[in-house]
């Protein structure tokens, strides 16, 4: 029920914001997203090259805003991820955001 809710809310918010995007975000596989995040993003986002980043560092709305215009994400040009992978990563960050029902534990 909780995931369905997430999907609905995410979809509703996306629609509501009327942001044009290449594909609709939300409803991905957050668990796989966690794996993909570790594999692809953690190597820089570890407090070294880039800021240490956990889902709980931002609110769901902030993650939404971040991903609504991926061109503004500095490293996005270097990504070699499929749209599905990006959506999984987004879902992970969104599902465990700081104002989510299960905020990621501090890490």
């Amino acid at each position, binding site marked *: *029920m909780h995931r369905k*809710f997430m999907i609905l809310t995410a979809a509703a918010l996306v629609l509501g914001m009327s942001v044009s995007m290449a594909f609709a975000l939300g409803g991905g596989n957050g668990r796989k997203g966690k*794996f993909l995040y570790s594999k692809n993003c953690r190597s820089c986002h*570890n407090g070294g090259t880039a800021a240490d980043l956990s889902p709980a560092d931002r609110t769901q709305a902030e993650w939404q805003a971040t991903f609504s215009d991926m061109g503004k994400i500095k490293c996005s040009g270097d990504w070699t991820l499929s749209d599905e992978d990006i959506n999984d990563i987004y879902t992970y960050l969104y599902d*465990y955001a700081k104002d989510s029902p299960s905020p990621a534990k501090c890490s």
Partner: protein
Amino acid sequence: MAQTSRTLSRREFFKASGLLAAGALGGPALLGGLRTAQAATETMTPAWDSRFGVCDMCFNKCGLIARVENGVVTKLDPNPKFVKSRGMLCARGNAGISHVYDPDRLKHPLLRKGGRGEGKWQRIPWDEALDMAAQKMDEVREKYLPCGHLFTAGTDMQSLFVERLAEAYGSFNLTSHESLCLVSGSRAFLDTFGEVPFADVLHSKYVIMVGANRFEALVTPDSMDLMTAMREHGCKLVTLDPRYTKTAALSDEWYPIRPGTDMAFMLALAHVIVGEGLYDPQWIEEKTYGMEQLREHVKPYTPGFAAEQCGIPAEDIARIARELAAAAPASMVYPGRRSSDYEDSTQIRRSFAIVNGLLGNWDRPGGLLGARAVGLKGVPYDAPWYDDNHDDRIDAGKVPMMFEHEGSFMVTRDSILADDPYPIRGWFVYKTNPMATAPNRAKTIEMMHKMDFVTVVDIAMSDTAWYADLVLPSQSYLERIDPCSGLQGSSACACVVKRDPVIEPLYESRPLFDIVKGIAGRLDLGEYFDFTIEQFREKQLADLPGADGIMDRDGVYYNPSKVYGIYDGLVYKTLSQKVELYNQRYEQMGIDPLPVYTPPVQPPANQFRLVVGRNALVTQGSTTNNTLLHEFVPTNTLWLNPGPAGKLGIADGDLVEVSSAVGRQAIRAEVTDKIREDTVYMLTGFNTLSTQQRLAHGNGASIAEILDGGYDTVTGNAALHLTFVTVTRKVA
């Protein structure tokens, strides 16, 4: 003085005459005895070494100093520099020696030989044990996919390695002890304030204690701080409890509230505070969301309504509301840590949180505080991904707002019994004992019988271990090196502790870390445990230079981070970014956005509601075999009010049978007017199935056998006050 001189003369006379009797009795030499007495006035090098440790007799990790003589701990003392516990060590902490040197400790790996629970074991070598654990886990994964294995870990400084093993292995099914404890309370406060608060009772002027029992149930900073607040700052304490607990006895006011009606009381407080405008309008305007909805919502919940429900006079409810509001923001409804009680426990706790919201006490002295920065870093790892796996946890989607990291033991158990939506056939358990703590023990036994293979790592033969296939002896908290742990003690401190061994490990015991490392290596997952605990700690402390040395010196490191005003300039971690009196997400999910009171079902005629309660001398099933604590709490009894006891012909000390819809137990009655007529109570942890708990087996009653297995419908937290029992005198 005349008396003294006479005495001395008599004394000298006997000394002079040599006191043959003393020598004949083989007593200590005369001079030896005198020397001891005189030595007391001079400071000497003690006979012991002093080493820092971190207590583990409950979950609060109080700093301690172990006094070690010839490799043996002879005394555990508080670490005076450990501000979080206000420099104390409680009775359980003092009894740690009996835990470490318990003759019933597990001494070597044991493999089940007979049927589950028959108690037939074979000693096997460690290598064989780890080979077998790994092989069986591999078989389960082969047959049922990675999620076909459940991992359960109690609260421990090494439990994070069980999570790591589960994730490396590929199972999402991990449960902690919390869904048998406090997640509904955490849920309610998180969903109101955006985080789970610490209570600054030290600076509070008015505290309402409901569903918590701070002076009796456990001794942590809040216990000491509340006492200091009362004795030195004139704080007023009002307690609602169906039992006359020690907390009740020490309170300014106590009301034996009807069980299950706490929410009515809270909504009536809100009714008075809102209706009479006893709040800070600016704070409510700036910091909260949903005041207008709340105003409408609480209209029917008058003190008169609550009085009928709770059995507390309406004028007292109204007066308490006014006093509480007058003391705001340095006043609170204590958030408590009590396990959940009813199917609407999250909503009950929401009503507590909402009253706190009205008091404007968040992030302010004497109110509820957010978590402070401790500075410890997480140690991330790149878990593997298995495409061939189930999509989600077995308990996923069955309650709307479970905590992903804690799971729900109750929902998981039901799901495993029904193979819904998939089978789980393997179970790895570390240092937690659901067989003794989860309601409806018969169901937990049934769950055990579903399993192909169960591995339990613990220090003693718990009831959960008793039903396992493989039992591995772990080390006590005085024998091992542990990762660092960040702790907060309300306003006292934010600090970091670590554990280093103070004595050599006993028997063949091994730390959990070595065990999971051994298993992981055999499953070709060694890369996830390719480090030592020292290296792990270095990573944790990367942002705290010098902290390690300070811990070596003081036994604890403090981070002097901000205590109050943490939220100045920041938004709350809720959807509205404010304190959510009205919860928007609940509305979207079809959950009551404001708590709606439903009167509890009353016990049928001649039955009682069985309530649970904690005791600072008992840590569930893990201390009832402790020789020292056993002297304080030798057994459990059934508290029964003299009124019904008389009608049932039950006298104090009589053996009675307590039976519920799911089980029955025999226990001695304690006939006392410290409990309501419609309620009975007993302690947990007694009458173990395991015969290797000599002081607890066959002693008293197991509450897990009698409690029925409902749960909170929002979080899946076990609901422990749903059980009605009959009590009959047992003919001896």
